[in-house]
């Protein structure tokens, strides 16, 4: 068993880049990650990658180099990047390979995702009648959560305010202007209680990471970041997930709970030791719920943490320091790797304007997506 290190990171700016294909953004990110590690594509022994709407990752080799490496496409919705990373982790940890690359990228049309129910094994009636809509799910999930935990919707606004504030400090973010709370609350209601500015938008962007055996990391960088734990879980009977025409009356934890617990267990690190966290904020209700589901705080405790500024960059538990999905948009294939990119910057001390103070040592990432999946990582320097 080898430990695993991240020795190169690269990104193509998120947002909208007219005239540049998703594949071109992926190639840009891959070259940046390779340069960061001081390696060439011909040094890569494997690749894992994926996009939802921008093409097959394995075809990137026609640009990056036809070296014969095994390059496996990954398609796991919002957890595509996280899944690619977990596959890379296993490839290195098992001793199969020493060094390789993961690439996540996407380029979505404007507006909410419109998914074909047949892809999820649901009849056409579900889409025709206007229920195959992710934004509704998030509205209903947070509506129920606020009710069960007796929380007020004010935190949903404060989280959005923080996201745009952090985005304004991150040169790679899409949305770089702070938005006052009153404007967030007065924005058009998308799915009650969530307004337009509380949701992320489908977007574009790419991230690549070069990983290697930890004992070789210092050959490529003097500041390796170690992937201490990575885990992926799908839903259990009784959890409340997107695109569900029905739910069980028995209740079960979401896949986030098990994936995060497994990642922390593998790392031998407790949630209380986390110095910086990037968690799925498809909308602000997701950040609220996921703070507790990942074990970073208790259910109901979020209200005080958020109101007191504990989750701000300078707070005790900085969450989504790069502005999260809300300020960066969501290119499905790239989103999970953006979180890891941001944590590597933070642990290296390279995050500039949005650097968490105090020399952070432990980073945590969490993605969640359709049809009820979660991937988490624990990183240290």
């Amino acid at each position: 068993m080898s430990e695993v290190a991240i020795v190169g990171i690269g990104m193509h700016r998120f947002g909208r880049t007219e005239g540049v294909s998703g594949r071109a953004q992926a190639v840009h990110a891959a070259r940046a990650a390779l340069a960061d590690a001081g390696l060439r594509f011909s040094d890569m022994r494997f690749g894992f990658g994926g996009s939802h709407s921008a093409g097959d990752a394995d075809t990137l080799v026609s640009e990056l180099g036809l070296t014969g490496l095994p390059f496996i496409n990954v398609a796991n919705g919002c957890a595509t990047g996280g899944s690619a990373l977990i596959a890379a982790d296993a490839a290195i940890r098992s001793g199969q390979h020493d060094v390789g690359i993961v690439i996540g990228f996407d380029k979505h049309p404007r507006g909410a995702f419109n998914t074909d129910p047949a892809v999820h094994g649901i009849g056409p009636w579900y889409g025709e009648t206007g229920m195959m809509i992710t934004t509704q799910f998030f509205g209903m999930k947070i509506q129920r959560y606020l009710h069960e935990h007796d929380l007020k919707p004010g935190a949903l606004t404060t989280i959005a305010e923080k996201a745009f504030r952090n985005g304004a400090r991150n040169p790679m973010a899409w949305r770089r202007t702070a938005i006052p709370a009153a404007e967030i609350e007065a924005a058009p209601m998308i799915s009650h209680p969530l307004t337009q500015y509380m949701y992320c938008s489908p977007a574009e962007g790419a991230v690549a990471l070069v990983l290697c055996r930890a004992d070789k990391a210092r050959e490529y960088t003097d500041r390796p970041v170690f992937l201490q734990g990575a885990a992926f879980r799908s839903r259990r009977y009784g959890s409340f997930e997107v695109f569900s025409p029905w739910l069980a009356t028995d209740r079960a934890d979401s896949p986030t709970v098990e994936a995060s617990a497994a990642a922390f267990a593998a790392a031998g690190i407790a949630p209380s030791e986390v110095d910086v966290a990037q968690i799925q904020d498809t909308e602000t209700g997701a950040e609220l719920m996921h703070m507790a589901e990942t074990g970073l705080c208790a259910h109901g405790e979020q209200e005080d943490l958020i109101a007191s500024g504990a989750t701000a960059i300078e707070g005790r538990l900085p969450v989504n320091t790069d502005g999260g999905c809300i300020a960066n948009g969501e290119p499905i294939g790239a989103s999970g790797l953006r979180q890891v990119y941001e944590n590597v910057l933070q642990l290296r001390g390279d995050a500039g304007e949005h650097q968490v103070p105090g020399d952070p040592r432990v980073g945590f990432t969490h993605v969640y997506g359709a049809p009820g999946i979660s991937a988490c990582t624990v990183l240290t320097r």
Partner: protein
Amino acid sequence: MIAGRTTVDDALFVETPEGPALRGSRCAGCGAHTFPVQDGCPRCTGSSMVDVTLARTGTLWSWTSQGFTPKAPYTGTAAYEPYAVAYVELPGQLIVETRLVETDPEKLEIGMPMELVLTPFRDDGSGEPVHTFAFVGVSS
């Protein structure tokens, strides 16, 4: 046709003396319910599902509004918008996702009793309404 009306998919429904109901599945092994019908049991992983008529009444479990006109595959007609959606708990069976007849947030409260109705959501080529299921509040 269900209860004399055109629906989006007649296979979703069963006619009962009390009115239309939803057709689901129940696992003969463990008793878990699903909607719509399916062959495999998501709880015990068995494959002995039988058809079951789901309850026509339940309680509001969660809800939200739909603030924009969805893209395809949505086929609704503007005359039937805006619409709201919800999960309604059918006691002892499951929690079903549904459209709501009521769209005013002030009139929706988790726990309120509800009943299934057919509601139009689009007009067909000749201008005749096509129906789907929805729940409407009833006095307890």
